[in-house]
Structures are given as C-alpha cells and as structure tokens.
C-alpha cells in the first residue's frame, strides 16, 4: 500500500511526517491571515463638465437639493429638503419619490439630485442619502464642494 509505514512491505515508503508538519504550518499561516473579501461596489457620480470649483447658484424651483447640516449641540446630522426637516430614510424616500413623480409628470429630462453637505458630516451619512436617491431612481447625483450648505 502506498501509504503504509511498514518498511518490510514497501521498502521505498517516504516519511510523510515532515510533509505533514509543513502543511500544518502553511494551514496555520493561511488560517491566521485569512480575511473574507468584502463585496465592494460603486455608486456613480458625475461632476459638471462646464463648471470648475465654485459654489452653486441659487436653488431653482424644481431643483431637488438635500442639505445635510451638522448639529453641533447634539452631534448629529440634520437633513433638509427645502425648509422641511427630514427625520427618517422613509420620509426622505417619500419626498424624493414625489419629486421624481412630479418630474416625470412635467416630462423633465433632468432627473438629478444635489447633495449639499457640511464638511463635518460623516461620509457614511452622505452615502446613505445617495443610496436612498438611487433607490428612488435619481440616477444623476451631484455633490457640492467648497462651502457650507445654506441653512
């Protein structure tokens, strides 16, 4: 038998013990360094081609703009669309859905939403708003930079 340790039976049997040791070491190395790969993806953004650095102009009537302000006192973000304060993701989704429906109703081609966030806001809060916008079929998301959002 190939794996037999009996030398009388197989005079050319190899000693597998060092190999087992090496494989054990390799196994331990890979087990210790193993990390499940995180499934990563992307969210597309497009910067306006025609404008460089600078602040946005005044909001248009039909401009969907989500403002993310930083509440220093309570150390938490505040979300607003226009003057209305948004408390939850569902409320934000509802408002965006209504805006999207209005745009479809008015046959507007430009289905973009602008996220105007304070520099102190946590990045994951901004991505969360982007996620809700994508869910509500706003494909074009613009991020502002170079200023603080208007209150």
């Amino acid at each position: 038998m190939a794996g037999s340790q009996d030398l009388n039976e197989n005079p050319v049997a190899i000693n597998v013990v060092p190999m087992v040791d090496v494989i054990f070491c390799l196994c331990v190395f890979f087990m210790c360094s193993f990390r499940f790969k995180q499934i990563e993806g992307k969210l597309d953004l497009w910067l306006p081609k025609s404008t460089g650095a600078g602040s946005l102009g005044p909001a248009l009537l039909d401009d969907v703009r989500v403002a993310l302000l930083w509440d220093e006192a309570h150390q938490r973000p505040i979300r607003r669309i226009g003057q209305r304060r948004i408390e939850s993701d569902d409320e934000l989704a509802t408002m965006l859905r209504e805006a999207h429906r209005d745009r479809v109703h008015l046959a507007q081609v430009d289905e973009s939403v602008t996220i105007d966030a304070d520099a102190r806001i946590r990045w994951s809060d901004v991505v969360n708003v982007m996620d809700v916008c994508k869910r509500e079929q706003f494909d074009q998301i613009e991020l502002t930079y170079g200023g603080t959002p208007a209150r």
Partner: protein
Amino acid sequence: MAKFQPPPVEESVSPNLIPMIDIMFLLLLFFMLGADMSQRELEEVTLPQADMVQADSNTQTGDLTTVNVHHRTDHGFKCAVADGGGVCRDESHWLMAIRGKDYTRDTLNMQLQVEATLSVEPVADPKTGKQLSARMVMIRADQNAPYGLVQKVIEACSFANIYKIQVGAAKPPKA
C-alpha cells in the same frame, strides 16, 4: 520438554495518515485560493454600506485611479476618537493614498493632474472648449471620514478636469 510457543505477533498501531493529508491539502487549497492577495494596493478602509451599490465591473484598471481616504495607523499611531469608533475630524489624522502612496492636499492635486493626462477625451467639451480627462476616479473613503476630505478629492478631480467619479461602497450583509 519445551512447550511450543507461537511467535509474538507485532501489531501495527501506526495511524493511516493519508486521509489526514488529503483533508489538510484541501484546507490548504481553500485558504490559498480564498486569501485576498489581489488587492494589496487598496488600503484597509471600512466602506460605508449601500443597498444600491453596483457590482464593480472594472476588470481592467487601466483607466481607473483609486483614491483611498483612510485614518492613520502607521507606527502605532493612536487616536482616541477613531479607536472608539467616533468621527475623527482632525485632518492631520487622515491620509489620501493612491496605489499605497500617501498624498497631502497639494500633492494630491498634482498627482491627479498627472493621472488626468494619461487618458484624455478625444474631443474637447463643446460648451467650455476644455480638453477633459477620460480618466475615472474611484473614491474609497472610510465610513467615518468627514465629508470635507471627500470634498477635497472631488475638488482636486475638478481642477484636473476629471469628471467621472465613482464612490466605493460595500454591499450590506444579507440578514
């Protein structure tokens, strides 16, 4: 008169190692193939989670520059806020890295301008007459990074005439 004694029987008690070796080989194969050795240029960042994230289909990274925004961890660097899971707003604690090399705000501007020239749109933008870059920039920022840092990267992209931006996010685990 001597009594007949049967010869002593040697019982072999050595275990059969072959099945164990087979299993260990399989384990070794699993860990070797599953080890994430392919993306060493990406920094260790905890990406924010998003449901609507698209699978990254950029198999060819020729036209893609990845900017990682990550907190400093070098030489046992300690930050009480970041270690406690909070949002560290000290900009000196954060780094912006491209292919494992860290950049400051000024050097990032220069590097992105270099990257932008590697791939240029064939036709100038009709509105502005500017020759825009066809380069795509992926921003992989830590979920706890302040948005101001991402703003800086976007601003640097804008100065370099790069307009194609992607934001890195992770698919949330299924409940």
